């Protein structure tokens, strides 16, 4: 039973989420019967299954709520804000009771009482009905301890009994198990063969049963049919035995079947993490095997290695896909947040959701909650105006917070958009100057100013909130998102709202990468963004007059020479290769000595020391034991652009990569970046 109880607890938690989202939708669509039915069903299942698995307190509590929703369903009650708020409170209470069942502190029963009292009041009627009495027995109690008596039983099933799935022979068989049974069939009602409908039952049985069971137990055998059959059960005094009649053999032989159908199983997240870790190790070992096979000129070993490579890739993809979950549950949870915050702040806010079916790695989803809560809170707290102010600005009094998710290559974009007042660009600018982030004379576009609110140090100043109307903890959000190897962008339209875009990787553990070499250093570029690879000869460089521009089929593509960026000192080869990569800033190339090929990359974190290294998103171990850094092309390009700008105008932004440089410990990443001329 332990297993079932755990299954119930998991299920009940899901049902509560469903209930909550139904309640919140109900608030916006008060007439929608389907939503009421959803809430009812959730409560109904919590009640029913709760009682099944011994959670009588939860079941009893849910019963009262269910009754209220039954009334709603039948139109005997109307949806009110009070009722919705009370029900939300009740859902929380059930959650506490579930927690109590897993050994956490006991739920406050007086709170339950208070909710139920208020519920009775809202329902406007004394709560006459009682919760169902537990475990009503409907099967034979088989009280065979009583004195053995003889019973005369006459049974004539309804003609359509067979069609409804009743097999009278089973019933007779059950009686036989209770004691000595003698049966006589009554065929009097049987029509002539030509008129007989073989699917209808025309027979009746007279039986004599000698048993220690009482009349109730005998009647219980017929419980499913007693309402539409002819049945009499009478005790007989010393019996006059009826003639024995053979039981008519009516049998149905069905085809054999053994098709078992399991739709899904529950596995603990821990086990999945373990699996993914093991797959990660396997991928690393596979890389070693590949390297060994490559060195030995043995076709047999090579064939095995290729086979293992293929299998590891599909194993990797499979185990990764297991961890992918739709964002729906996360998004739905925010309905509650928006509802509660709206009440608290006296603002009317509607949450709209788009792309909730988008799937993301579970570990990413788990860590996504906090940043999103922060962003929504910010929007509602500072971005969205009061209903009066909105009306004065010519907007609808009800504001919208829009949450959306969509795929973009190996990333998922999650947007939080509000239609509030937007950022006060001048205030942000003033504050940034005050904090020394920019010089008073810097020429910055509005977009650049807006992005300053993400800068560390900027937003931690509480006073800004009042001026700019936003900003508390934005760098915290940024750090959270960057810990997920994601990035953050802010766009603001004055008077029309703010959109924050989170760009997140699909998965955290293993990616498809492209392994490149510069001198003796190895780097990995994410394969998902890579477009093509072109050669770069001395003649090409000459043709571009020293500018870092590659000619890709007539198009000029700017490139960054990793050799220069990372200050690799070895001799430059005659021919270089340029990887063309799609970045946020458009197409860019990365010039390397050699492109070695694709590589299943197990991402290892670089550790605390390199936390602020933005251009490197991690490291991986190659087959020969060498460490390769995993590059973030977007950051790399941004950083290169910034350092290029810095050399052009000395009134510079205190940029991210300067930060990087200061904290870097490795030789390659050490020191100031050399400017990259574009």
């Amino acid at each position: 039973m332990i297993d079932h109880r755990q299954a119930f607890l998991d299920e009940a938690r899901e049902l509560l989420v469903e209930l909550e989202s139904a309640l919140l939708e109900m608030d916006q669509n008060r007439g929608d019967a389907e939503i009421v039915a959803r809430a009812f069903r959730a409560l109904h299942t919590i009640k029913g299954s709760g009682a099944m698995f011994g959670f009588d307190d939860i079941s009893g509590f849910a019963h009262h709520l269910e009754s209220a929703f039954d009334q709603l369903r039948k139109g005997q009650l109307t949806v009110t804000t009070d009722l919705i708020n009370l029900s939300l409170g009740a859902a929380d209470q059930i959650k506490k009771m579930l927690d109590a069942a897993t050994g956490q502190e006991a739920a406050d029963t007086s709170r339950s009482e208070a909710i139920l009292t208020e519920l009775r009041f809202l329902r406007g009627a004394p709560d006459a009905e009682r919760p169902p009495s537990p475990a009503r027995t409907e099967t034979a109690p088989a009280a065979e301890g009583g004195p053995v008596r003889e019973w005369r039983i006459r049974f004539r099933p309804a003609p359509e009994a067979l069609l409804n799935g009743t097999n009278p022979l089973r019933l007779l068989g059950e009686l036989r198990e209770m004691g000595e049974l003698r049966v006589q069939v009554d065929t009097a009602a049987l029509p002539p063969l030509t008129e007989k409908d073989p699917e209808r039952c025309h027979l009746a049985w007279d039986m004599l049963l000698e048993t220690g069971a009482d009349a109730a137990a005998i009647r219980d055998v017929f419980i499913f049919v007693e309402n539409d059959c002819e049945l009499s059960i009478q005790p007989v005094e010393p019996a006059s035995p009826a003639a024995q009649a053979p039981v008519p053999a009516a049998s149905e032989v069905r085809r054999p079947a053994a098709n078992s159908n399991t739709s899904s199983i529950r596995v603990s997240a821990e086990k999945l993490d373990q699996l993914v870790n093991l797959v990660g190790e396997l991928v690393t070992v596979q890389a070693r095997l590949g390297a060994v096979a490559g060195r030995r000129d043995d076709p047999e070993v090579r064939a095995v290695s290729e086979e293992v490579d293929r299998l590891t890739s599909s194993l990797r993809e499979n185990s990764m896909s297991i961890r992918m979950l739709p964002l729906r549950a996360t998004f739905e949870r925010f309905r509650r947040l928006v509802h509660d915050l709206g009440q608290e702040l006296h603002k009317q806010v509607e949450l709209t959701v788009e792309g909730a079916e988008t799937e993301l790695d579970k570990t990413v989803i788990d860590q996504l909650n906090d940043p999103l809560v922060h962003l929504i809170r910010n929007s509602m707290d500072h971005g969205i105006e009061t209903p009066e102010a909105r009306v004065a600005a010519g907007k609808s009094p009800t504001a919208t917070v829009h949450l959306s998710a969509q795929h973009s290559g190996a990333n998922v974009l999650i947007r939080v958009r509000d239609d509030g007042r937007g950022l006060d660009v001048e205030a942000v600018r003033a504050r940034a100057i005050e904090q020394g982030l920019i010089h008073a004379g810097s020429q910055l576009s509005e977009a650049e100013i807006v992005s300053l609110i993400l800068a560390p140090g900027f937003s931690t100043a509480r006073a800004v909130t009042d001026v700019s109307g936003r900003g508390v903890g934005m760098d915290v959000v940024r750090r959270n998102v960057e810990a997920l190897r994601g990035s953050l962008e802010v766009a603001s339209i004055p008077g029309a709202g703010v959109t924050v875009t989170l760009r997140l990787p699909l998965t955290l553990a293993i990616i498809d990468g492209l392994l490149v070499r510069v001198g003796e250093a190895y780097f990995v570029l994410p394969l998902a963004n890579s477009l093509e690879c072109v050669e770069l000869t001395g003649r090409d460089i000459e043709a571009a007059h020293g500018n870092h521009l590659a000619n890709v089929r007539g198009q000029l593509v700017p490139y960054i020479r990793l050799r220069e960026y990372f200050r690799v000192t070895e001799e430059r080869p005659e021919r270089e290769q340029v990887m063309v990569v799609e970045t946020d800033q458009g197409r860019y190339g990365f010039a390397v000595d050699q492109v070695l090929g694709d590589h299943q990359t197990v991402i290892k974190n670089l550790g605390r020391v390199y936390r602020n290294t933005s251009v490197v998103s991690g490291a991986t171990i190659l087959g020969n034991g060498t460490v390769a850094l995993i590059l973030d092309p977007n950051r790399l390009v941004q950083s290169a652009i910034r350092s290029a700008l810095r050399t052009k105008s000395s009134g510079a932004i205190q940029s991210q990569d300067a930060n990087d440089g200061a904290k870097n410990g490795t030789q390659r990443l050490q020191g100031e970046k050399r400017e990259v001329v574009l």
Partner: protein
Amino acid sequence: MQVLTLSPGSMRLEEVLSKVILTVDDSASVRQMVKFTLSDAGYTVIEAVDGKDALTKLTGPVNLVITDLNMPNLDGIGLIRGVRANPACKGIPIVMLTTESQESRKQEGRQAGATGWIVKPFTTQQLLAVVKRLIG
């Protein structure tokens, strides 16, 4: 290993091969409990999450249907009507699981053609007793 002889007077085929029971419930925990209990007793159990799902799974041989009444998409009553309307499923016993001990709901189910019912909460023994009563 049981030897299967089909000579007259021997064990009937249906008694040797495991019977198939379809459990229909939107509650995974109830489905799990039904499945565990009945699989233990030697039945083959297949699952459906609602009435609609159940109708698609009734294309194979099924000896008994155990269905909840309140479900999304197609509720228990609708499922019972659907099964009874399908000539291929003629006479399959259907047990409804109900927490509503109110007579009206039960009556509705019976009129739709349900064979029996079990009132939730029920024990595994009660479940087995009902299944045995209907299909042995």
